[in-house]
């Protein structure tokens, strides 16, 4: 599949649940997110840790470092699968239009890119190891 943060980016405009480290939960539609997992939610319902208090808020900005986990709807994953198929189909069409000789090799190369989800994590890890 893809990297966790790219899955989050794909989940924009979808409803989700965010639980913070302090146990509070925020339910809302993901407006945007960044590389530090900071997120902007719209139409948010806040639930306190004890589940006793609820607040409704039009929008909320949550700093990534305070997040414990995010619950993502399954519809996002289905969308991702369809997106991947769409991208591959689009690439095939592009090659047919170009009718270049290297189209087969280029297609093979780009077909390899679908694995980058796993290796992307790996190459990211290499960078992380260097910095550590």
């Amino acid at each position, binding site marked *: *599949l*893809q*990297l*966790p*943060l790219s*899955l*989050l980016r794909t989940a924009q405009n979808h409803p989700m649940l965010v639980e913070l*480290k*302090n*146990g509070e939960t925020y339910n809302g539609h993901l407006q945007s997110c960044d590389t530090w*997992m900071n997120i902007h939610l719209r139409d948010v319902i806040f639930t306190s*840790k004890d589940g006793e208090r609820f607040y409704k808020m039009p929008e909320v900005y949550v700093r*990534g470092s305070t*997040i*414990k*986990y*995010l*619950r*993502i*709807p*399954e519809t*996002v*994953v289905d969308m991702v699968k369809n997106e991947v198929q769409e991208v591959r189909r689009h690439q095939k069409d592009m090659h047919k239009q170009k009718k270049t000789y290297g189209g087969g090799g280029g297609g093979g190369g780009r077909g390899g890119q679908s694995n980058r*989800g*796993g*290796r992307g*994590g*790996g*190459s*990211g*890890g*290499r*960078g*992380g*190891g260097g910095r550590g």
Partner: protein
Amino acid sequence: LVFSVRIPRMAVNLSDPYLPGAISLFEQLDKHLIVVLRDGRKLIGYLRSIDQFANLVLDEVVERTYIQKYYSEISHGILLIRGENVVLAGELDDSIETGQIKVSIDELNRIEQSLEQSNNDVQGGSSSKNDLPLDEPY
């Protein structure tokens, strides 16, 4: 003639090109894992994605709560877990019988309450919880 040779797992790890000298979660992808969080929660699911911070994407997640030999499960769907909250992740062998009994959430709450009562009668102290949390909520 073709011979198939079984390469011992250790040899494969040493030649891992992605994280030399480090243990990678890469080999745990699509496996059934139990993930323990710092707040003591035990989440069970299939590992779908990882990154360099060990942020995890788990699929078909159930949160399991244990009281002695009884447990109950809450479904959570797909979870993106921030890596710093993870204590450990371990591969589950679904074929192993643990002798633990699955009950409903209400039933588990009842068991917990009855245990707390009996503990208060005997000792007047809190029952020893083997759970974490490691951190105070902040």
